């Protein structure tokens, strides 16, 4: 497969995953705006396609580790919407019984093993997941997602070195959204590209336009194939934009006008829709997919609203295997 070629089934899969992420994010923001939800939420607007194309290249049984801005990764990986919505709302019907929230979504059935709220901490853990697959020979690969801001913490370097040393079946997906919290990439990192760091560990690296569905999918697929074949890890730097503030509702006036214009022009959603039309999908087909997803979002929001609040006994459970005495 060349870098520009993709089959229609894969493209449709990427589109559906992308729009599931996009419609969920839209729904979360609407619930927050109308006061139906009052929680911390890190919007994924602008990064929908990166995850969708990356996760489409994984098998359902592959492992994923992501970060607090991770709803796109989780949804694209397949976490069901009802428990996801309920978890974000802090309800018992949530993936984690309301004890984790949006920053700690965990869903082993779909391979989502850890979502961490600490920048960079997922990388060493991903190595361990991959190590267990290597020892078991189960053929799974592990993907860990993180932002550009995570590449200057020690855990990144320790994990990259160890992964390459042991040729672990792991893919380091840096979603370079050009901001670490409020600090622009060029104000926190001297090199132009994160991917140049791969060479420092003797690791394969690839830089890709994360808003190009075909390139993003094919780049990830190549890394997945390498990992599955026992050829070791890859660092992928996927260029994208965080199209809103650090967390939902936060000011982002620190982003220069030119940056805002650039990211609006690069918005992955209209670009993907055009690509679909170019591949002879019809407006009606695409609209039907979105309408179906919106119905799922409404149902998930209702499920979350109706799910009970966790009781105080939950505090004594899951600290250890055995419950703490009251």
């Amino acid at each position, binding site marked *: 497969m060349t870098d520009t070629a993709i089959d229609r089934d894969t493209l449709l899969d990427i589109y559906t995953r992308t729009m599931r992420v996009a419609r969920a994010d839209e729904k979360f923001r609407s619930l927050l705006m109308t006061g139906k939800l009052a929680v911390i939420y890190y919007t994924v607007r602008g990064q929908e396609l990166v995850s969708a194309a990356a996760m489409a290249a994984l098998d359902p049984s592959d492992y994923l580790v992501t970060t607090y801005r991770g709803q796109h990764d989780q949804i694209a990986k397949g976490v069901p919407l009802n428990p996801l919505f309920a978890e974000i709302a802090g309800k018992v019907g949530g993936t984690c019984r309301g*004890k*984790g929230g949006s920053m*700690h979504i965990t869903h082993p059935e779909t391979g989502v093993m850890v979502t961490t709220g*600490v920048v960079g901490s997922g990388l060493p853990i991903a190595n*361990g997941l991959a*190590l267990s*697959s290597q020892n078991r020979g189960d053929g799974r690969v592990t993907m860990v997602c993180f932002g550009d801001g995570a590449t200057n913490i020690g*855990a990144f370097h320790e994990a990259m070195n160890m992964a390459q040393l042991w040729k672990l079946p792991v893919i380091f997906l840096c979603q370079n959204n050009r901001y670490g919290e409020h600090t622009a990439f060029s104000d926190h990192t001297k090199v132009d590209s994160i991917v140049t760091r791969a060479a420092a560990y003797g690791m394969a690296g690839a830089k890709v336009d994360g808003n190009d569905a075909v390139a993003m999918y094919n780049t990830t697929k190549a890394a997945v194939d390498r990992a599955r074949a026992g050829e070791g890890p890859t660092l992928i730097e996927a260029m994208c934009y965080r199209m809103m503030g650090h967390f939902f509702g936060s000011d982002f006036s620190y982003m220069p006008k030119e940056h805002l214009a650039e990211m609006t022009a690069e918005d992955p959603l209209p670009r993907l829709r055009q690509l679909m039309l170019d591949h002879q999908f019809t407006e009606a087909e695409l609209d039907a997919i979105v309408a179906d997803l919106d119905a799922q979002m409404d149902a998930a929001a209702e499920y979350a609203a109706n799910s009970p609040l966790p009781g105080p006994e939950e505090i004594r459970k899951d600290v*250890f*295997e055995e419950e703490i005495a009251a």
Partner: protein
Amino acid sequence: MTQITMTQAINRAIDEAMAEDEGVILLGEDVAAKQGGGVFKISSGLTEKYGEHRIRATPISETAIVGACVGAALTGFRPIAEIMLMNFVTVAMDQIVNHAAKLRFMSGGQTNVPLVIRTTTGVGVGFGGQHSDMLEAWFAHVPGLKIVTPSNAADAQGLMRAAIACNDPVIFIENILCYGLKSDDPGPGHVVPLGQAAIAREGSDCTIVTYGRTVLDALEVAGKLAEEGISVEVVDLRTIAPYDEARITASVEKTGRAVVLHEAVKQYGTGAEIASRLNEKLFGKLKAPVTRIGGAFSAVPMANALEQAWIPNKDAIADAVRAAVNWKG
């Protein structure tokens, strides 16, 4: 009866667990055969039996070591992370405190981290301020972690088996000065359940609650005080957290007096928690205030003369017991 050293005991426990379960792996600096089986030889002979994919010598990367063990544990492995010296756990605190300890809770019980972090330390070897600390109180303050330390070889073997079998993360603290201690060989398959203290010596006038190397000091002091007619009970916690409160409370209820002893710095140490809980449970039944003895409030010094002045001193332990017994209110 044949005897076994603490080094041999820990090695045997790991060996047995590795033979039973492919998921038991050991990661740490210098641990494989090529590097000599670890700085303190705990993993001696294991690479030859189980291979380099299970005995993994790592780069000097404590965050990556513990993180990899956390990840492997999430899939059902039972990894052992060797952190060469206890001060180096500070480099991996995020993985231990924010991840190993909390993933079970934050996932609502969907995942768990059956991980053992083995580490060693100890005052009295002249290693100075960054190689000697007992940091158990830091971990005891974190919900989700269990903390274990053996005072003798047989317990070391049994506690290590229990720690590896535990479905939650366990910090297993060894003391450099105790590696050569010998016990009667408890034989293969020996397990000491977590959470159970041991009565190291029975007595009736005062309880010394302690753990790890200072159990030896307490026993020596108890022997000496017996000659003065003071009967000391020595309780070895073995599991520091969550500790065997029932056994401690029962002992102190019997003697009416308690001295809590540890090598770690006294201020804000685990002794404060134990003393406080004894006061809450036994106020009115105590014949003297519960007192604490611990290390001095400074970095551990290098010079042996200073180390000996820093460390809880046997005379001070004896004086604390005498003061409790002679307390007039």
